[in-house]
């Protein structure tokens, strides 16, 4: 039996009358990159927040590397790296102060953190900006800081919510390659994106969420089979499965 890094069972979450997540099940194998695809409001971010213990599920369980999130959310947070959809980082700190703060929170030894932070700053081309206040950073620079924060403590599981948003092409490529490399070393990744080309290039498996439910999951070729669209792009598969493909009338209306 393959070792599971993450197992979500019968997961549900409502906000008032809105059923954000509706009894979903999925697993991530150790070293697997699972792409979570879905339109805005489909429940991806809610699912990710429940994995971190930031939101409490109404029903269902989540086990991350053998730790039940409901029982030990702090334990899960220690081994997970998380990039939220819109990173709200402390903009009155400098980049280096923020990363030092994060290192303290993960109890990274002081002797180790300088070289580790330095590598990321160089790799993501933030070197030279590390002593500036984050309030003066561009959106892409803030995203890079958030990504470094998620990786700095060598997590076993990565939960990345639209993590490539705002990154320049070089940095986006670097992060994608890094994720692949980490996955090869056994790090498991849950990755949500709207950019289907990224999912197609990066993910081992894909789960398509729509209105709080997972409509389909598996490899991309599995999904093509399920959609009855062999040889098609992931975009076509996605639109077919979510039933949102017929946009002709909308385009006609908008272009009037």
């Amino acid at each position, binding site marked *: 039996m393959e070792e599971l890094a993450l197992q979500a069972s019968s997961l549900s979450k409502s906000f008032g009358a809105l059923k954000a997540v509706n009894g979903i099940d999925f697993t991530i194998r150790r070293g697997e990159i699972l792409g979570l695809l879905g339109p805005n409001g489909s429940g991806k971010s809610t699912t990710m927040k429940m994995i971190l213990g*930031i939101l409490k599920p109404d029903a269902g369980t989540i086990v991350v590397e053998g730790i039940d999130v409901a029982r030990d959310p702090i334990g899960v947070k220690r081994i997970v790296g*998380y990039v939220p959809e819109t990173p*709200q980082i402390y903009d009155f700190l*400098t980049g280096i102060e923020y990363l030092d*703060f994060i290192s303290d929170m993960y109890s990274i030894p*002081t002797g180790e953190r*300088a070289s580790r932070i330095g590598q990321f700053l160089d790799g993501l081309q933030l070197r030279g900006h590390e*002593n*500036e206040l984050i309030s*003066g950073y561009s959106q892409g620079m803030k995203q890079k800081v958030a990504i470094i924060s998620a990786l700095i403590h060598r997590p076993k599981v990565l939960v990345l919510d639209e993590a490539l948003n705002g990154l320049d092409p070089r940095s986006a490529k670097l992060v994608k390659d890094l994720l692949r490399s980490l996955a090869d070393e056994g790090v498991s990744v849950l990755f949500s994106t709207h950019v289907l080309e990224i999912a197609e290039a990066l993910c081992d498996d894909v789960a398509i969420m729509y209105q709080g439910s997972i409509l389909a999951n598996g490899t991309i070729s599995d999904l093509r089979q399920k959609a009855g669209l062999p040889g098609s792009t992931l975009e076509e598969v996605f639109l077919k499965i979510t039933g949102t493909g017929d946009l002709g009338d909308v385009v006609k209306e908008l272009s009037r």
Partner: protein
Amino acid sequence: MNPRKIFAITIALSKSQLRASRGGRTSLSFLRKPSILLILDIAAFAICAILGYAGVTLLREFAGPGASAGSLQAYSEVEKGVREALIFIPVFVPGMVLIAGLLFELNVSSKFSASDTVNWLPITQAEYVIASALSVAYNYSISVAIALGITLAPSVYFGYGWAWAGVALVSILTLFTGGALVEILRAATNRVSSVVMKRARRGALFFRLALMVVIILIFETVFNPTILISVVNTLSGSLSVFVFIPLFWGALAIEGIVNGEPLRVLVFSAGTVGFTAALVWAATKVRSRYWSPAAFSVSITSSEYAPRSSSLLRMGLSQGEAAIVRKDIKGITRRRELLSFMAIPIVFVALFLVESITSTPGGIASEGGFFADFPTLFAASFFALLISSISFGQESKSVMVLYSLPIAPGELLRAKAFLALAFSLGATFATLAIFSLIGGSSPLVVVENITIAVSITVEEVCVGLAFGARFPDFQERPRPRFIDPVWLLVMTVAGLAVALVTALPIIFRDILTAVPGALSFPWYLFPAAWVFAGVVSVLAYRFARGSSEKLMAEYRI
């Protein structure tokens, strides 16, 4: 200059100020329109006018035919009081608007002011400054409405009807003067911010806080009529000096109406208009020169990153707790919206100090007793309550970072409590030292004051944390509030009530000391107060811990 544009900006700013501190609830949408302020003004004026009329009716009966000599003497005192009130209303208005500006305008988040839409719209600096000053004046106009309402009937009754009409006109003008002063203060504090942030390094951020406090203090002192009158009395003893102080020109114009001196009225009315125009001109100049339209890149240090073990760990804090404390210290010194929270208690205590020094020959504080003890108790209670109650809410939306990190609710609370206690005890001891020196308190009194002030500080920090953890407001608004305003009021009442109970030994001691031949002081009140403060602290901290656990259990923002 385009009046239509000015009007449009005034309405927009007024809406922004009205809505900046209110939640998203739309059920009472009329409360979110600028017209509500006018309705409130009219209502306040009407109620106060009725009260004033009722007062006059009572006065008529009191001083009617057959009244005693004492009654007639009192009647004459009331008339004198009404005349002085009319003369001084216009003088107090700008200072009042300045205080309101300090409390409610200067804590606007730099994030919102930096992305201010007006910076890229086709609006001149003068148009913006006038509109902003108008909106500030409009927002705090209720005080003038109350003053005019309460004085209307007595003024007519005593034959000062024309003077009252003059007061109405001059007060509206000085309301605008206050608005212009707030604009200058805004630009001055922004200037300090940008200079320090652009050129300075780590240590200088504390310098910015000190400089801001000094600037605010100078403004609040220079435009505080009570202090000015005391200073004039001390320095010259002649009221003719007021002719040279523009703030008093409005009062001199009203005095001219009361005394029937048209030339005086004309000269000083024109002077008041000129003074206000000069302030608007100055505000326009300082804004156009010092306003930074967008967030700029700021380097705090150029030195190489060298992580080291925190000295806070030696004080018993965990690595995570120490990290939160260090982060919050940086926030206090760098975030403009938090600077005013630090500055307000310091400014109020300093104002009390200035007033006490200037109001009597040796100063109130030099007389010792409760006047010397009060500022310490005020600092201990108000500052501790304020700082601790905002400690959770000031995380704003970045609290999401804490939710995603491995930090336990208990650790978060300890970190917040540590910082609030450190700052509050510092403020308490500083105030205690200053006022004990001025008051010449005996060593025994100082020791007694220390024990009570520390007890109050600790209990107020715990009460503040209890409310702050339970009812935080993480929403980012132009004017962030950090704690639910309703519970802020409840907390203030509860906090000041327990502080008052804890301070009873000092109050009794000061009263008994002031009354010759009074009963001997019941010494056991001191240990009783310490026990009371201890019980309140433990209960409040336990409540705060429960709230912190509940808060961190799920992100509900």
